[in-house]
């Protein structure tokens, strides 16, 4: 089992980018979105378009995109419903100019803008996350965080999560096979029946987790984990190249624009 999140080996330019750059792109995109959300629709639309470009350059398989898009369309349907669907008993929130009214649906210009903001935020962040995790190995993600001076304990925790999750998923697959071999069919029965069948997997998963945790902690101590008085050093360092700086500058400019725009909106 390769791990909990999916790095997809590819020959794209993005997979060769410095992990620090990719992490910064993610952080700067999130910051720009936070600044422009419900403030500037043009910036939000730009972020959405940039995220699509990032996905395209990263050559993320369409299967992943379909899953991410499906999940966020489901969420978006919820947002649309709460903004334009007002059945009897629910007080309609009518803001701005009514563009369209039919049955229990009331569509206003402000509701449309709100929905577009939500949609752009959802999709741009989903696609940027997908860009980051599919083009960066888990090891590089941690390296990027360490380079960005995130505390060692947090980076180490993340490593442990990645490593344990990989082992956990591998155990899950074997335990499930073992149960299927004894006649348990996980695809049949009512939801309650299926849940009961999955409960059979919990016992061995917990036991293995506990047994592993004890070996893991002994192994960590034996390697010197817990030594006091020293600040952990970092052996592997990554150097940014000119195109890394260029990209970081580009995204930082976007954040600056969003920030200036927000200040201007605040004062006007």
């Amino acid at each position, binding site marked *: 089992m390769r791990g909990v999140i999916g790095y997809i080996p590819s020959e794209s330019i993005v997979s060769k980018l410095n992990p620090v750059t990719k992490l910064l792109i993610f952080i700067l995109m999130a910051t720009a979105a936070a600044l422009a959300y419900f403030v500037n629709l043009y910036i939000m639309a730009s972020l959405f378009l940039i995220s699509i470009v990032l996905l395209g350059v990263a050559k993320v398989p369409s299967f992943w995109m379909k899953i991410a898009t499906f999940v966020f369309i489901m969420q978006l349907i919820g947002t649309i419903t709460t903004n334009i669907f007002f059945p009897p008993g629910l007080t309609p929130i009518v803001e701005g100019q009514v563009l369209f009214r039919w049955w229990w649906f009331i569509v206003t210009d402000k509701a449309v803008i709100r929905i577009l903001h939500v949609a752009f935020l959802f999709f741009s962040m989903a696609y940027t996350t997908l860009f980051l995790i599919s083009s960066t190995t888990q090891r590089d993600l941690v390296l990027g965080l360490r380079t960005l001076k995130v505390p060692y304990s947090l980076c180490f925790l993340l490593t442990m999560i990645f490593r344990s999750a990989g082992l956990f998923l591998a155990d899950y697959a*074997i335990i499930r096979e073992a149960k299927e071999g*004894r006649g348990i069919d996980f695809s049949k029965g009512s939801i309650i029946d299926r849940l009961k069948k999955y409960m059979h997997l919990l016992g061995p998963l917990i036991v293995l987790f506990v047994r592993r945790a004890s070996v893991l902690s002994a192994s960590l101590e034996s390697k010197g984990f817990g030594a006091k008085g020293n600040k952990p050093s970092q052996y592997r360092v990554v150097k940014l190249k000119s195109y890394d700086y260029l990209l970081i500058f580009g995204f930082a400019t976007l954040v600056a624009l969003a920030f200036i725009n927000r200040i201007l909106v605040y004062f006007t």
Partner: protein
Amino acid sequence: MASIIKLSDVWWKYEKDKDWVLKGINVDIKKGEFVLIVGPNLAGKTTLAMCFNGLVPHSYPAGEFKGNVIISNNIDTRNYTVAEISKKVGLVFQDVETQFVTMSVEDELVFGPEIRGLSREEIGRRLKWVLKIMRLEGLSDKAPFDISGGQKQRAAIGAALMNMPEILVLDEPTTELDPLGKAEVLESIKQLNKELGITVILIEHLTEETAPMADRVLFLYDGKIIDEGKPDDIFQRVDHLKSKGVKPPQVTELFYLLKKAGVPLKKLPITFDEAESKLFELLRPTSATFKTPKIKTTELRVFNQKSEPIADLSDVTFVYPDGTLALQEVSLKIFRDDPMIGIIGQNGSGKTTLAKLLAGILKPTKGRVFLGDLDTTKAHMAEIGRKVGYVFQNPDHQISSNTVREEVSLGPRNLGLAGLELERRVIETMKDLEIEEFAGENPFLLPKGVRQRIAIASVLAMKPRIIIVDEPTTGQDFKSSYTIMDKLTQLHKRGHKIIVITHNMSLVAEYCGRSIVIDKGRIVLDGPTGFVFMQEDVLKRTSLKPPQATSLSNILSSIGIPAGVTSVEKLSEILINRIGLSPRSYLRSKK
């Protein structure tokens, strides 16, 4: 030589345990010494290993510790943390997977020095050195799932070495490895001791490979050191070792039987080379008068079964979802009158994939698998479960119920059994595997040997015609391994077809009449075990090696001894006959 680690009257008891696990251990290990610790399961070997680096008592604050463990004459382990002691003592565990805590070989190696805050330059220097001596060059960026078990274990040893310890303690480091991985790891350990002078304390069940490497052997039994000395001396006491659950090298056992039969021998050899030259010495003078006993014909003929196949794989190819080609156009028939079958091969050769295809857990990408007239691609798992049962390597992957009784009844209940019939089936199965005394107990809390038998019982209760057992003896001492294999033989005699996947060549030779060798997803050898183990060239190409007794018989075939003899007892009978001992002395040796 100066003492580097000294244990004086060490006693240890885990919290809630009534009995002491270590009972007054006194050991004085010298700088640069190679110490081998042998002993049966539950003798206290792992606990003793943890004493050397302070995990005992520091990681178990509620336990009770008495005595002293002194490192380098001045470090009392009770007064230093494990992290501090790790600069002096490196500890490597049996579990190759879990002790790999990071996401790449390089990260794993630099972990310790980074934690200590060493400079990049110093870490780089050490890394280069460790990559070279542990033969890990080119693997720095590999993730744990991309390297073999042997490489992972070498990385674990390398991680300990990065702290520049003076002492390396290795707790059964080769248990989970295939023959190639075992050889690689042992070779590296030997090199560290001989070339770099690192003190090595090795805990192992494998005495054939490790006895010749050690300067001293400690025999731990029931928390006490009951014997210690040079390997040459310790392994002379064959009966004593075997009665206490330690298997001496096969060549030593062989010469022990010869000596008992009256062959004049001063000392029993402990290495293969010694045994080989001694046998040529013994056999040459009588070569004109020997009578070679006939080996049973079943041992040398190539299989040509006439009974109907109960399982039939034809042109099966299997590709995992990530694109790994695991099996390539494999055809195999399992017959009703087959003896017990052993499937052998390196890690990743395709053994488990083949077995899972037979058990219907995996469906072939190409080709067909038939169990009688049942096509596994179309059948429901419950139907397949009546024909084939699969016992997984780690019993903890299989056990899920709160009591042993519930665990054994899970499979037959899924087949629709209920009431008295179910109860009868469960009791009968528990009796077969001798686990009825644990019926009401929580299986997770029982020892691994018992858990392994519970896992077999839970499959046996479904009464499948074929039972596939994956690595049933991993991590078990010799007595527990033989107990499990004896149980499987009984089941085989009662009509279940037993297929064993294992890295233990001696067990395959002794218990399996048919062996299948898999290499890179293809069957490269299939036939009677004696015949398969005669093909040493093919085995070598697949990184396998016959057991010592079989190898000796293969070599001695140049002077008329039959090749492919699969057990020490059979070979000793042949040799005794050949040497020309009187029937009386031979009978005395059998006693």
